[in-house]
């Protein structure tokens, strides 16, 4: 692959720069595992409802930033891939008659491992699990004693990805679809009519709830196309994130759907004191 060749060239040039470094036993060299990282901005629409704050559905805009880091894992780089993600999203929404605002700010961090299968025609499919933390809140400024609905969850997720290497004209393109669905965990919710003042007074009972699909359903879909220009790529895509929870007769729903624009690339971290075997295998996280 042309991209692989570019990465090899990058690695070789770095080796040349470290020519003064002491020689090491080439037999001890491990495969090179470049880091695939991406910085993404997303902007689109959002629909929110939280019956602790209001029974009315709000709609508006979603904008956010996400970071993704993927790398073949050291113990079995051909099969296992690590993925770290972090994102921050903000929603500004209005009620249908547009006389009230509701804001949502949420951040999440997750780490996971996937097992991949290389299929014919340059298709790679991976499946695995991840665990992550989501923290944030919805804020309805018109409410006095109940202005905020806190979102806090720790979940164990099913996740995976599918990639396909292709070309658009002369530009190499990597198409990727990446869904994540929590399957279990713990999440926060006050009781049906419980005010945060009562929690402030010290009543912390019954705030943590077991998350399963009946009480906590979330599905994050990320579809991207990386258009490779040299060592970096322009990432274009679409993201949809659906969160729907029901506990203590409080229903929360947050749906965002947004366009994604970002920069992605594969980067190698080389030790200048260590000589790299020019024949070392380079194992990408994506293909």
């Amino acid at each position, binding site marked *: 692959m042309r991209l692989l060749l570019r990465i090899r060239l990058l690695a070789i040039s770095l080796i040349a720069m470290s020519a003064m470094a002491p020689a090491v036993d080439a037999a001890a060299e491990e495969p090179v595992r470049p880091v695939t990282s991406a910085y993404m901005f997303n902007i689109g629409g959002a629909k929110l*409802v939280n*019956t602790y*704050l*209001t*029974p*009315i*559905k709000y709609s508006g805009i979603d904008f956010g930033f996400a970071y993704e880091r993927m790398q073949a894992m050291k113990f079995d780089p051909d099969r296992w891939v690590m993925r770290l993600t972090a994102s921050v999203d903000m929603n500004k929404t209005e*009620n*249908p*008659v*547009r*006389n*009230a605002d509701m804001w949502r700010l949420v951040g999440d961090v997750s780490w996971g491992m996937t097992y991949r299968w290389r299929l014919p025609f340059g298709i790679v499919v991976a499946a695995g699990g991840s665990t992550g933390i989501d923290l944030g809140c919805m804020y*309805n400024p*018109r*409410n*006095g*004693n*109940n*202005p905020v609905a806190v979102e806090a969850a720790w979940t164990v997720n099913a996740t995976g990805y599918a990639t396909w290497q292709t070309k658009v004209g002369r530009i190499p393109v990597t198409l990727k679809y990446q*869904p994540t*669905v929590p399957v279990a965990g713990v999440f926060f919710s006050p*009781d*049906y*009519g*419980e*005010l945060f*003042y*009562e929690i*402030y*007074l*010290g*009543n912390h009972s019954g705030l943590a709830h077991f998350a399963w*699909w*009946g009480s906590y*359903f979330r*599905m994050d879909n990320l579809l991207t196309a990386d258009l490779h220009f040299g060592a970096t790529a322009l990432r274009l895509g679409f993201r949809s994130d*659906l969160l*729907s*929870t*029901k506990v*203590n*007769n409080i*229903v*929360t*729903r947050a749906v965002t759907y947004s366009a994604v624009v970002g920069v992605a690339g594969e980067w190698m971290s080389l030790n200048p004191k260590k000589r790299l075997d020019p024949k070392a295998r380079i194992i990408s996280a994506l293909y």
Partner: protein
Amino acid sequence: MTVIAVTACGCHKVDEWDNNPQGNFEALWTILDEHYCFFEEKGVDWDATHDKYASKINPKMTQRELFFVCADMLDELKDGHTNLISSFNTSYYRKWWSDYPENYSERLVEQYYLNFNYLSTGGLDYAILPQNVGYVRYGSFANPVGEGNLDNVLFYLESCDALIIDIRNNGGGNMTNVETLVRRFITDRTLAGYISHKTGPGHDDFSKPYAYYFDPADKGRIMWGKPVAVLTSRGTFSAANNFVSIMKYLPRVSIIGSTTGGGSGMPFNSELPNGWGVRFSACSVLDCKGVSTEFGIDPTPGCEVDLDPQAALDGHDTILDFAVDYLTSGASVR
């Protein structure tokens, strides 16, 4: 995955109402039906109330007509914490205080007792009365009181033999200010009361009352251990009513004046499809005996006093006079 998503969201259903007179009326009735906390205590048959007012709704009525029908329905709750809020009006049940004497005149106190000469800090006006009794006026619990403010006030009044805290017509505010103030009058961890919230949409779905406690102010803060009189009127409401419910059971504290206005339900907010806001009592706060104070708190026995309008014309606040006599005669020391 799509099937799972649709199924999960289908389970998490959210009620929806049309934005028309019928839809907005039903939304308002349902929000109160599922969240209001005093139906049983007030003996309100909410289903019957629905039938009474639903018959007044018609598709062609104007927003103003709808507003006043809905406001009348809310008035059936006789609750000063319940409001319907639109761009042209905010409904408000006033009879909880308008049917009673006001029992307070700010001008009377300032002119004849303070001679317009008093200090003010953190929402507190304070001075020393000629009988060597400290006087503190706290007009609203919405005004934040800082620990430093209280240190200065109590230090200034340190030489006084007793203290009057005047919260007549104090309509409430922030409950955390209640705690800040009470902590200066207790020496040990003190049971302040109980709080109970709705656990579901049923009229009887309530949590077990949760006991909450206040601790004395931090070491180094100025405390008050001498006799105290808290002056109350029907306008003493909500957070001010809560302050009285706690102070009433402290040693050397007397409640003087008239029965407070109540308002022990902490309010929640919600909204209707047409954008109107609604506010209503949602969490019941009980006193340290587990008794509701929604209908008000009576003064200490023997301390029920009204402001005599005739005496007021001669520059006498009969409630304040009673309090000064009560404190200086030693009757306040139980």
